[in-house]
Protein backbone atom coordinates (compact mmCIF):
# COMPACT_ATOMS: atom_id res chain seq x y z
CA UNK A 1 0.00 0.00 0.00
CA UNK A 2 2.78 2.40 0.87
CA UNK A 3 4.46 1.80 -2.46
CA UNK A 4 1.17 2.41 -4.27
CA UNK A 5 0.62 5.73 -2.52
CA UNK A 6 4.18 6.66 -3.28
CA UNK A 7 3.67 5.96 -6.96
CA UNK A 8 0.51 8.04 -7.01
CA UNK A 9 2.36 10.98 -5.52
CA UNK A 10 5.09 10.47 -8.08
CA UNK A 11 2.59 10.40 -10.91
CA UNK A 12 0.90 13.60 -9.79
CA UNK A 13 4.35 15.12 -9.46
CA UNK A 14 5.16 14.32 -13.07
CA UNK A 15 1.85 15.78 -14.16
CA UNK A 16 2.64 18.92 -12.20
CA UNK A 17 6.28 19.15 -13.18
CA UNK A 18 6.48 22.93 -13.26
CA UNK A 19 4.95 23.17 -9.80
CA UNK A 20 6.92 20.36 -8.22
CA UNK A 21 10.38 20.55 -9.57
CA UNK A 22 11.45 23.59 -7.62
CA UNK A 23 10.14 22.37 -4.29
CA UNK A 24 13.06 21.19 -2.19
CA UNK A 25 10.78 19.47 0.30
CA UNK A 26 9.93 16.78 -2.24
CA UNK A 27 13.48 15.89 -3.12
CA UNK A 28 13.81 12.66 -1.16
CA UNK A 29 10.81 10.96 -2.70
CA UNK A 30 11.50 12.44 -6.11
CA UNK A 31 14.85 10.80 -6.45
CA UNK A 32 14.56 7.26 -5.13
CA UNK A 33 17.49 5.34 -3.70
CA UNK A 34 20.73 3.83 -4.94
CA UNK A 35 23.23 1.35 -3.57
CA UNK A 36 26.49 1.87 -1.72
CA UNK A 37 28.66 0.95 -4.71
CA UNK A 38 27.37 3.71 -7.02
CA UNK A 39 29.65 6.23 -8.69
CA UNK A 40 26.77 8.55 -9.42
CA UNK A 41 24.11 9.89 -7.10
CA UNK A 42 21.34 12.47 -7.04
CA UNK A 43 20.69 14.76 -4.08
CA UNK A 44 18.04 17.42 -4.53
CA UNK A 45 18.59 19.27 -7.77
CA UNK A 46 22.17 18.11 -8.10
CA UNK A 47 23.86 15.08 -9.58
CA UNK A 48 27.24 14.04 -8.25
CA UNK A 49 29.60 11.87 -10.22
CA UNK A 50 32.96 10.51 -9.12
CA UNK A 51 35.61 9.28 -11.51
CA UNK A 52 38.92 7.84 -10.33
CA UNK A 53 40.12 11.07 -8.77
CA UNK A 54 37.50 13.81 -9.02
CA UNK A 55 34.03 14.83 -7.90
CA UNK A 56 31.86 16.43 -10.58
CA UNK A 57 28.79 18.47 -9.61
CA UNK A 58 25.93 18.92 -12.08
CA UNK A 59 22.87 21.13 -11.76
CA UNK A 60 19.88 19.08 -12.91
CA UNK A 61 17.11 21.47 -11.83
CA UNK A 62 16.23 21.69 -15.52
CA UNK A 63 17.37 18.30 -16.85
CA UNK A 64 17.33 19.42 -20.48
CA UNK A 65 19.80 22.17 -19.51
CA UNK A 66 21.95 20.03 -17.24
CA UNK A 67 25.09 21.95 -16.44
CA UNK A 68 28.48 20.97 -15.04
CA UNK A 69 28.97 23.42 -12.16
CA UNK A 70 32.40 22.36 -11.02
CA UNK A 71 34.97 19.59 -10.76
CA UNK A 72 37.21 19.12 -7.77
CA UNK A 73 40.09 16.82 -6.97
CA UNK A 74 39.42 14.40 -4.14
CA UNK A 75 42.11 11.73 -4.17
CA UNK A 76 43.16 8.61 -6.00
CA UNK A 77 41.23 5.43 -6.76
CA UNK A 78 37.80 6.73 -5.85
CA UNK A 79 35.09 4.14 -6.18
CA UNK A 80 31.83 5.16 -4.54
CA UNK A 81 29.62 8.07 -3.47
CA UNK A 82 26.73 7.97 -1.02
CA UNK A 83 24.52 10.91 -0.02
CA UNK A 84 23.02 11.42 3.43
CA UNK A 85 21.12 14.63 4.13
CA UNK A 86 23.64 17.49 3.84
CA UNK A 87 26.66 15.22 3.44
CA UNK A 88 28.30 13.21 0.71
CA UNK A 89 30.43 10.18 1.61
CA UNK A 90 33.06 9.22 -0.90
CA UNK A 91 34.86 5.89 -0.71
CA UNK A 92 38.32 5.42 -2.16
CA UNK A 93 40.84 2.63 -1.93
CA UNK A 94 42.73 4.53 0.74
CA UNK A 95 40.06 6.20 2.81
CA UNK A 96 36.68 7.77 3.31
CA UNK A 97 36.04 11.42 2.47
CA UNK A 98 33.17 13.36 4.00
CA UNK A 99 31.92 16.38 2.07
CA UNK A 100 29.65 19.02 3.55
CA UNK A 101 26.87 19.49 1.08
CA UNK A 102 24.95 22.31 2.74
CA UNK A 103 25.87 24.34 -0.32
CA UNK A 104 24.92 21.64 -2.83
CA UNK A 105 26.35 23.63 -5.73
CA UNK A 106 29.83 23.21 -4.32
CA UNK A 107 30.43 20.44 -1.78
CA UNK A 108 33.30 21.17 0.61
CA UNK A 109 35.69 18.56 2.00
CA UNK A 110 35.05 18.35 5.75
CA UNK A 111 37.03 15.39 6.93
CA UNK A 112 38.61 12.12 5.96
CA UNK A 113 39.56 8.82 7.52
CA UNK A 114 42.57 7.07 6.07
CA UNK A 115 43.04 3.36 6.10
CA UNK A 116 45.18 0.73 4.47
CA UNK A 117 44.64 0.00 0.83
CA UNK A 118 41.41 -1.83 0.09
CA UNK A 119 37.98 -1.39 -1.48
CA UNK A 120 35.54 0.54 0.64
CA UNK A 121 31.94 1.50 0.00
CA UNK A 122 30.39 3.75 2.66
CA UNK A 123 26.91 4.31 4.06
CA UNK A 124 26.00 6.67 6.85
CA UNK A 125 23.36 8.05 9.12
CA UNK A 126 23.24 11.29 11.09
CA UNK A 127 26.07 10.44 13.48
CA UNK A 128 28.02 7.47 12.15
CA UNK A 129 29.61 6.25 8.93
CA UNK A 130 29.94 2.56 8.10
CA UNK A 131 32.75 1.46 5.81
CA UNK A 132 33.62 -2.01 4.55
CA UNK A 133 37.21 -2.84 3.69
CA UNK A 134 37.86 -5.74 1.38
CA UNK A 135 41.20 -7.11 0.25
CA UNK A 136 42.55 -8.32 -3.04
CA UNK A 137 39.61 -8.95 -5.32
CA UNK A 138 39.47 -6.79 -8.41
CA UNK A 139 42.90 -5.40 -7.76
CA UNK A 140 41.91 -3.48 -4.66
CA UNK A 141 45.03 -4.59 -2.84
CA UNK A 142 45.49 -4.71 0.90
CA UNK A 143 44.85 -7.48 3.35
CA UNK A 144 41.98 -6.11 5.42
CA UNK A 145 38.52 -7.67 5.52
CA UNK A 146 36.37 -5.80 8.00
CA UNK A 147 33.62 -3.36 8.81
CA UNK A 148 34.69 -0.07 10.38
CA UNK A 149 32.32 2.30 12.15
CA UNK A 150 33.30 5.97 12.46
CA UNK A 151 31.90 8.64 14.72
CA UNK A 152 31.05 11.71 12.62
CA UNK A 153 29.03 13.64 15.24
CA UNK A 154 29.66 17.35 15.51
CA UNK A 155 33.27 18.30 15.07
CA UNK A 156 34.31 14.64 14.96
CA UNK A 157 33.47 14.80 11.28
CA UNK A 158 36.64 16.82 10.74
CA UNK A 159 38.61 13.72 11.66
CA UNK A 160 36.22 10.76 11.88
CA UNK A 161 37.07 8.59 14.85
CA UNK A 162 36.93 4.83 14.48
CA UNK A 163 34.71 3.40 17.24
CA UNK A 164 34.41 -0.23 16.19
CA UNK A 165 35.73 -2.91 13.88
CA UNK A 166 34.12 -6.22 12.98
CA UNK A 167 36.07 -8.78 10.98
CA UNK A 168 34.28 -10.72 8.25
CA UNK A 169 35.17 -12.34 4.94
CA UNK A 170 35.18 -10.16 1.81
CA UNK A 171 32.66 -7.46 2.82
CA UNK A 172 31.38 -5.35 -0.08
CA UNK A 173 28.23 -3.26 -0.53
CA UNK A 174 26.16 -2.39 2.53
CA UNK A 175 22.86 -0.85 3.58
CA UNK A 176 21.44 0.53 6.82
CA UNK A 177 17.94 0.66 8.27
CA UNK A 178 16.65 0.89 11.84
CA UNK A 179 19.99 0.06 13.47
CA UNK A 180 20.36 -3.02 11.31
CA UNK A 181 23.26 -3.02 8.87
CA UNK A 182 23.22 -5.46 5.96
CA UNK A 183 26.68 -6.25 4.64
CA UNK A 184 27.22 -8.22 1.42
CA UNK A 185 30.07 -10.71 1.62
CA UNK A 186 30.02 -12.15 -1.90
CA UNK A 187 29.52 -15.92 -1.82
CA UNK A 188 30.12 -15.84 1.94
CA UNK A 189 26.58 -14.53 2.31
CA UNK A 190 24.65 -11.53 3.61
CA UNK A 191 25.61 -10.48 7.12
CA UNK A 192 22.78 -9.04 9.24
CA UNK A 193 24.38 -6.86 11.92
CA UNK A 194 22.79 -5.09 14.88
CA UNK A 195 24.49 -1.70 15.25
CA UNK A 196 22.34 -0.33 18.07
CA UNK A 197 25.54 0.01 20.12
CA UNK A 198 27.96 1.57 17.64
CA UNK A 199 30.94 0.42 19.65
CA UNK A 200 29.76 -3.19 19.67
CA UNK A 201 28.26 -4.29 16.34
CA UNK A 202 26.78 -7.78 16.67
CA UNK A 203 26.23 -10.17 13.78
CA UNK A 204 22.70 -11.59 14.25
CA UNK A 205 22.76 -13.98 11.33
CA UNK A 206 24.31 -14.68 7.95
CA UNK A 207 22.12 -15.60 5.00
CA UNK A 208 24.23 -17.94 2.97
CA UNK A 209 23.03 -20.31 0.30
CA UNK A 210 25.75 -19.88 -2.28
CA UNK A 211 24.28 -16.61 -3.60
CA UNK A 212 26.93 -14.05 -4.50
CA UNK A 213 25.85 -10.85 -2.69
CA UNK A 214 27.28 -7.58 -4.03
CA UNK A 215 25.17 -4.65 -2.76
CA UNK A 216 21.87 -3.89 -1.02
CA UNK A 217 19.24 -1.16 -0.80
CA UNK A 218 16.87 -1.20 2.20
CA UNK A 219 13.58 0.21 0.87
CA UNK A 220 10.71 0.43 3.35
CA UNK A 221 9.90 -3.17 4.22
CA UNK A 222 11.83 -4.57 1.28
CA UNK A 223 15.54 -5.26 1.05
CA UNK A 224 16.74 -5.16 -2.54
CA UNK A 225 19.86 -7.28 -2.93
CA UNK A 226 22.00 -6.93 -6.03
CA UNK A 227 23.43 -10.41 -6.46
CA UNK A 228 25.55 -11.94 -9.18
CA UNK A 229 23.20 -12.54 -12.11
CA UNK A 230 20.34 -10.27 -11.01
CA UNK A 231 18.50 -9.30 -7.83
CA UNK A 232 16.64 -10.83 -4.87
CA UNK A 233 13.92 -9.14 -2.78
CA UNK A 234 13.61 -9.82 0.94
CA UNK A 235 10.83 -8.84 3.30
CA UNK A 236 12.43 -6.99 6.22
CA UNK A 237 9.30 -6.17 8.24
CA UNK A 238 11.44 -7.77 10.93
CA UNK A 239 14.79 -6.22 9.98
CA UNK A 240 16.78 -8.86 11.86
CA UNK A 241 15.25 -11.68 9.90
CA UNK A 242 15.06 -11.03 6.13
CA UNK A 243 12.70 -13.38 4.30
CA UNK A 244 13.27 -14.05 0.61
CA UNK A 245 10.09 -13.25 -1.31
CA UNK A 246 10.97 -12.63 -4.92
CA UNK A 247 13.84 -12.59 -7.40
CA UNK A 248 14.88 -12.07 -10.95
CA UNK A 249 18.23 -13.58 -11.69
CA UNK A 250 19.81 -16.24 -13.82
Amino acid at each position, binding site marked *: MKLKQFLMI*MTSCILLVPGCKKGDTMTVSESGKGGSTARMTISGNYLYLVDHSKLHTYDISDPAQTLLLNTQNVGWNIETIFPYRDKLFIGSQTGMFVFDNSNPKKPQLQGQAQHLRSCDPVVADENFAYVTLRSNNNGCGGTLNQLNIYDIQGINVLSPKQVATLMMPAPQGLGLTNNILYVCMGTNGLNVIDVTDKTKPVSKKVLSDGTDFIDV*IPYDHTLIAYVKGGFILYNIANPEDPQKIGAIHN
Partner: protein
Amino acid sequence: MKNVTLMLMGTLLLLSCSNRKNEVTGYAPVYGDLSEMTGVSLEPARTVENGGKVYVWGDLLYQVETGKGIHITDIADPAAPVQKGFIKAGGAQEVAVKNGLIYTNSQNDLVILKIENNKLQVVKRLPAAFGQLSSPALPPERGPFECPDRSKGIVIGWQKKTLINPACSY
Protein backbone atom coordinates in the same frame (compact mmCIF):
# COMPACT_ATOMS: atom_id res chain seq x y z
CA MET B 1 59.94 -0.86 -66.89
CA LYS B 2 60.90 -4.49 -66.46
CA ASN B 3 63.66 -3.42 -64.11
CA VAL B 4 61.26 -1.47 -61.99
CA THR B 5 58.93 -4.49 -61.73
CA LEU B 6 61.83 -6.72 -60.72
CA MET B 7 62.95 -4.22 -58.13
CA LEU B 8 59.44 -4.02 -56.70
CA MET B 9 59.18 -7.79 -56.52
CA GLY B 10 62.55 -7.90 -54.81
CA THR B 11 61.45 -5.31 -52.31
CA LEU B 12 58.26 -7.24 -51.60
CA LEU B 13 60.25 -10.42 -51.06
CA LEU B 14 62.59 -8.64 -48.70
CA LEU B 15 59.66 -7.19 -46.81
CA SER B 16 57.99 -10.55 -46.40
CA CYS B 17 61.26 -12.03 -45.19
CA SER B 18 61.73 -9.36 -42.58
CA ASN B 19 58.05 -9.64 -41.67
CA ARG B 20 58.39 -13.24 -40.70
CA LYS B 21 61.22 -12.28 -38.38
CA ASN B 22 59.11 -9.68 -36.55
CA GLU B 23 56.06 -11.64 -35.58
CA VAL B 24 55.22 -10.80 -32.00
CA THR B 25 52.34 -11.41 -29.66
CA GLY B 26 50.62 -8.17 -28.74
CA TYR B 27 47.33 -6.38 -28.72
CA ALA B 28 45.21 -5.27 -31.66
CA PRO B 29 42.33 -2.79 -31.34
CA VAL B 30 38.73 -3.97 -31.43
CA TYR B 31 36.67 -1.35 -33.25
CA GLY B 32 33.09 -0.32 -32.74
CA ASP B 33 30.76 1.90 -34.71
CA LEU B 34 30.27 5.09 -32.74
CA SER B 35 26.59 5.71 -33.62
CA GLU B 36 25.73 2.07 -32.99
CA MET B 37 27.61 2.13 -29.68
CA THR B 38 26.20 5.35 -28.32
CA GLY B 39 22.65 4.80 -29.57
CA VAL B 40 20.01 4.25 -26.87
CA SER B 41 16.69 2.53 -27.44
CA LEU B 42 13.76 0.99 -25.59
CA GLU B 43 13.41 -2.74 -26.12
CA PRO B 44 11.28 -5.57 -24.76
CA ALA B 45 12.25 -7.05 -21.40
CA ARG B 46 15.05 -9.56 -21.66
CA THR B 47 16.81 -12.10 -19.50
CA VAL B 48 19.28 -10.74 -16.96
CA GLU B 49 22.73 -12.00 -17.85
CA ASN B 50 25.30 -9.99 -15.97
CA GLY B 51 23.24 -7.86 -13.60
CA GLY B 52 24.93 -4.72 -12.28
CA LYS B 53 24.15 -1.80 -10.00
CA VAL B 54 20.59 -1.14 -8.88
CA TYR B 55 18.45 1.93 -8.24
CA VAL B 56 14.89 2.05 -6.96
CA TRP B 57 12.33 4.75 -7.66
CA GLY B 58 8.69 4.37 -6.64
CA ASP B 59 7.66 0.85 -7.57
CA LEU B 60 10.31 0.52 -10.24
CA LEU B 61 13.66 -1.17 -9.88
CA TYR B 62 16.35 -0.33 -12.41
CA GLN B 63 19.24 -2.75 -12.77
CA VAL B 64 22.19 -2.23 -15.05
CA GLU B 65 22.99 -5.03 -17.48
CA THR B 66 26.71 -4.49 -17.32
CA GLY B 67 27.95 -2.88 -20.50
CA LYS B 68 24.64 -3.26 -22.30
CA GLY B 69 21.81 -1.30 -20.72
CA ILE B 70 19.18 -1.19 -17.99
CA HIS B 71 16.44 -3.63 -17.00
CA ILE B 72 13.24 -2.02 -15.65
CA THR B 73 11.22 -4.16 -13.24
CA ASP B 74 8.00 -3.38 -11.40
CA ILE B 75 8.38 -4.51 -7.79
CA ALA B 76 5.05 -3.18 -6.46
CA ASP B 77 4.41 -6.79 -5.49
CA PRO B 78 7.84 -7.90 -4.27
CA ALA B 79 6.70 -11.53 -4.36
CA ALA B 80 6.08 -11.26 -8.08
CA PRO B 81 8.39 -8.75 -9.79
CA VAL B 82 7.37 -7.99 -13.37
CA GLN B 83 9.96 -7.07 -16.00
CA LYS B 84 8.70 -4.05 -17.92
CA GLY B 85 11.38 -3.40 -20.49
CA PHE B 86 15.01 -2.89 -21.32
CA ILE B 87 16.90 0.26 -22.21
CA LYS B 88 19.75 -0.50 -24.54
CA ALA B 89 22.71 1.71 -23.63
CA GLY B 90 26.15 0.48 -24.63
CA GLY B 91 28.75 0.60 -21.89
CA ALA B 92 26.14 1.03 -19.13
CA GLN B 93 27.54 0.86 -15.59
CA GLU B 94 25.64 3.46 -13.57
CA VAL B 95 22.00 4.35 -13.05
CA ALA B 96 20.02 6.89 -11.00
CA VAL B 97 16.46 8.15 -11.35
CA LYS B 98 14.69 11.38 -10.47
CA ASN B 99 11.15 12.39 -11.41
CA GLY B 100 11.00 9.41 -13.74
CA LEU B 101 14.02 10.58 -15.71
CA ILE B 102 16.77 7.99 -15.98
CA TYR B 103 20.37 9.11 -15.59
CA THR B 104 22.91 6.66 -16.93
CA ASN B 105 26.04 6.41 -19.02
CA SER B 106 26.14 5.62 -22.71
CA GLN B 107 29.79 4.67 -23.17
CA ASN B 108 31.52 7.72 -21.63
CA ASP B 109 28.61 10.11 -22.05
CA LEU B 110 26.16 11.03 -19.31
CA VAL B 111 22.65 10.64 -20.74
CA ILE B 112 19.31 11.65 -19.29
CA LEU B 113 16.45 9.55 -20.66
CA LYS B 114 12.69 9.83 -20.54
CA ILE B 115 10.16 7.14 -21.34
CA GLU B 116 6.86 8.48 -22.60
CA ASN B 117 4.17 6.46 -24.35
CA ASN B 118 6.59 3.57 -24.70
CA LYS B 119 9.06 5.78 -26.52
CA LEU B 120 12.51 6.58 -25.30
CA GLN B 121 13.65 10.15 -25.57
CA VAL B 122 17.12 11.55 -24.90
CA VAL B 123 16.53 14.64 -22.75
CA LYS B 124 20.21 15.49 -22.56
CA ARG B 125 23.56 14.00 -23.50
CA LEU B 126 26.77 15.29 -21.95
CA PRO B 127 29.68 13.91 -23.96
CA ALA B 128 32.60 12.36 -22.05
CA ALA B 129 31.19 13.18 -18.60
CA PHE B 130 32.46 9.73 -17.57
CA GLY B 131 35.68 10.50 -19.41
CA GLN B 132 38.10 8.49 -17.37
CA LEU B 133 35.94 5.55 -16.48
CA SER B 134 36.20 3.21 -19.40
CA SER B 135 38.25 4.62 -22.21
CA PRO B 136 40.59 1.84 -23.33
CA ALA B 137 43.18 4.15 -24.87
CA LEU B 138 45.94 1.65 -24.30
CA PRO B 139 46.07 -2.15 -24.22
CA PRO B 140 45.78 -3.80 -20.80
CA GLU B 141 49.44 -4.81 -20.79
CA ARG B 142 52.63 -3.01 -21.76
CA GLY B 143 54.39 -4.06 -24.94
CA PRO B 144 53.94 -3.81 -28.69
CA PHE B 145 50.48 -3.15 -30.10
CA GLU B 146 48.82 -2.38 -33.41
CA CYS B 147 48.28 1.36 -33.79
CA PRO B 148 44.58 2.30 -33.81
CA ASP B 149 43.25 3.39 -37.19
CA ARG B 150 40.57 6.01 -36.65
CA SER B 151 38.99 5.36 -40.03
CA LYS B 152 37.93 1.94 -38.74
CA GLY B 153 35.84 3.33 -35.89
CA ILE B 154 36.55 3.93 -32.22
CA VAL B 155 38.49 1.53 -30.06
CA ILE B 156 36.19 -0.35 -27.68
CA GLY B 157 38.67 -2.94 -26.49
CA TRP B 158 41.80 -4.91 -27.24
CA GLN B 159 42.42 -8.50 -28.28
CA LYS B 160 45.63 -10.43 -27.99
CA LYS B 161 46.97 -11.80 -31.24
CA THR B 162 50.05 -12.31 -33.34
CA LEU B 163 51.11 -9.01 -34.83
CA ILE B 164 53.48 -8.36 -37.72
CA ASN B 165 55.77 -5.41 -37.23
CA PRO B 166 53.50 -3.48 -34.86
CA ALA B 167 54.44 0.18 -35.03
CA CYS B 168 53.17 1.13 -31.60
CA SER B 169 54.34 0.15 -28.14
CA TYR B 170 54.37 1.52 -24.61
